[in-house]
């Protein structure tokens, strides 16, 4: 097989596998930059995917499914917000709780409503997100090198994939070029100063948490309406944690988040493609090692062996006004 074709195949599945990671990691970016740690990305994504699968099937509309995913995911993040901002509970504990509640509730409700053994009914074409062919993709295919790259790598994804990649510069712009972004970052670094400036720390943090819910919902909808034809039990399969790892790996910055997600997506795509093929120089790599690599890399990074990942300073600490 010629190398270009091989590269394109690998790159294409990398993009497919990275899309939900990017959305979820950006979701984590908004809430953690506001000082609310969230290990419940996994649960919100799964809840979103479930809501999308149910509503898209009942309404036969992908957009309705997407909306439902966002609503459910935002509600879940409000629970997290209420526990960790208003009640000043432990943010890690709250995140763990949400992951469990969603993991159980989706299965119970899915079984009660659809009786299909841990899945929602398969969605027809109209109820899913369709692949978008960019203009001139077919016409330009003949152009050497750039033609196939445009036709197969840039074109031919679902709308949510383009949205995910657009959200990267958009998040950068929101965080670093708007008043809202400045305040959001400040509230995660030094909430006392923000309070002194007359801005409500509580409300800022709630807004960060809501942004997280919206993006997690979209990530979930991508899983059940674009990558698959419906929701299946436990379909997030640890993607929320990988996204969390990517967020740390990127040191809580939007553009590196995208590259970290692409790296982890690539590792995944590579592991799937080359499960049993020996590689030049290294020989046969156990597939388990490839699966563990994102986690190992994150641990190594966190331990400060490749740069140092410093979380937002007020992250994980509930804000107490009276002191």
């Amino acid at each position, binding site marked *: 097989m010629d190398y270009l074709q091989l590269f394109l195949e690998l790159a294409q599945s990398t993009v497919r596998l990275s899309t939900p990671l990017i959305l979820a990691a950006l979701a984590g970016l908004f809430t953690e930059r506001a000082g609310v740690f969230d*290990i419940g990305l996994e649960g919100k994504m799964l809840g979103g995917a479930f809501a999308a699968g149910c509503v898209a099937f009942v309404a036969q509309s992908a957009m309705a499914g997407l909306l439902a995913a966002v609503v459910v995911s935002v509600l879940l993040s409000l*629970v997290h917000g209420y*526990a*960790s901002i208003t*009640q*000043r*509970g*432990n*943010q*890690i*504990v*709250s995140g*763990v*709780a*949400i*992951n*469990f*509640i*969603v*993991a*159980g*509730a989706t*299965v*119970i*409700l899915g*079984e*009660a409503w659809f009786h299909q053994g841990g899945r929602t009914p398969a969605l027809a074409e109209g109820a899913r997100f369709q692949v978008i062919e960019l203009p001139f993709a077919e016409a330009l295919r003949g152009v050497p090198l750039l033609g196939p790259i445009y036709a197969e790598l840039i074109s031919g994804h679902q709308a949510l994939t383009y949205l995910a990649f657009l959200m990267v510069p958009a998040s950068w712009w929101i965080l670093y070029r708007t008043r809202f972004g400045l305040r959001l970052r400040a509230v995660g670094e030094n909430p006392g100063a923000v309070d002194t400036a007359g801005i409500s720390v509580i409300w800022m943090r709630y807004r960060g948490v809501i942004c997280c819910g919206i993006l997690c919902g979209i990530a979930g909808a991508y899983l059940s309406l674009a990558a698959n034809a419906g929701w299946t039990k436990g379909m997030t399969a*640890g993607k929320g*944690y990988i996204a*969390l*790892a990517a967020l*740390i790996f990127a040191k809580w910055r939007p553009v590196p988040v995208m590259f970290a997600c692409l790296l982890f997506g690539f590792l995944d795509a590579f592991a799937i493609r080359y499960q049993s093929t020996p590689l030049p120089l290294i020989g046969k790599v*156990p597939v*388990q*090692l490839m*699966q*563990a690599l994102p*986690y*190992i890399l*994150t*641990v190594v990074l*966190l*331990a*400060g062996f490749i740069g140092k*990942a410093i*979380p937002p300073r007020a992250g994980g600490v509930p804000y*107490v006004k009276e*002191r």
Partner: protein
Amino acid sequence: MSTPYAKLPGWVEYGLIPLVNLVVAFAVAGLVVLLVGESPLEAAYHMINGAFGRGEYIGFTLYYATTFIFTGLAVAVAFHAGLFNIGGEGQAYVAGIGVALACLWLDRIMPWYVVFPVAILGAGLFGAAWAFLPGWFQAKRGSHIVITTIMFNFIAASLMNYMLNRVMKPLGSMSLETRTFDAGGQLPKLDWLMSIFGLSVGTSPFNVTFLLALAAAFGVWVLIWRTRLGYEMRTMGHSPQAARYAGIKEARIIIITMMISGALAGMMALNPIMGETYRMQLDFVQGAGFVGIAVALMGRSHPAGIIPAAVLFGVLYQGGAEIAFEMPSISRDMIVIIQGLVILFAGALEHMFRPAITRAVLAFSGRGRADAAVKGA
């Protein structure tokens, strides 16, 4: 840390508030049952009956409780030092190697009471080793223990998948498990203990690991409240600054605490491997490490609270199986919801009902005193 709450009597702090949190968690779970179109009361009946209806059922309940006592103690020990060890799942999983090695090595030449101590040692060592790195990273390199232990759970899953696939599986076998142990690798059941109460264990795997779990709970109590190390751990948990000022070596305490926590989580592996299946299977931990979080939160990190909390989760697991059998629309995933709700209400939202309860208790005791005064006059 400042506590903006009034000091409450012990029975409110350790009895009433956890009870209210628990009742709310179960009430919400009941709503889910209603939503599915079943009767929560009927579900509760099947759960209690399934957990206590027969000697065999009680055996299963206590078998699960054994597992949860270990993982609950693991989380609690770390809590006392202000650390959140979310990696009990991975530590228990890797500790399976220690148990399996001891059994594969000795099961054909030694009786169980020789193999058991070796296996305990193996489980403790492998569990502690898997917790050592996250502890060391936190102590020396400043990485956050929660994130590292989550990552280590996933790394453990891949490692164990590899070990069972390539190393520990007998040649020519297709299923991902070690060979079945001979008599030396099989722990005796506790039928004598049950027969005291006139019950029979039946087919349930209730075994001597339960006694080890009770001993571990006592050991943790001694460690935390009766030793110098425990005092240092609690000091650090209350105020790292004060601990540093008092000359307590923070890094040392973090690493030792994590290793003790990992060893406790690891001992959980004895129960399913040597007590039930007599072989190490893929995914034998089955989320017990995470149940430990709920158990420790509910038990307020005290062994005297952890044991009843572990029994409660044993009831949920065993009774949940009965519910799933009697009411097909409620599968065992109901347990996962309840577990999540308990973590939410007993953990993250533990202070939600405190102001109301405080007011109620103060009003009640205030009136009581007034009554007494009237009578006295």
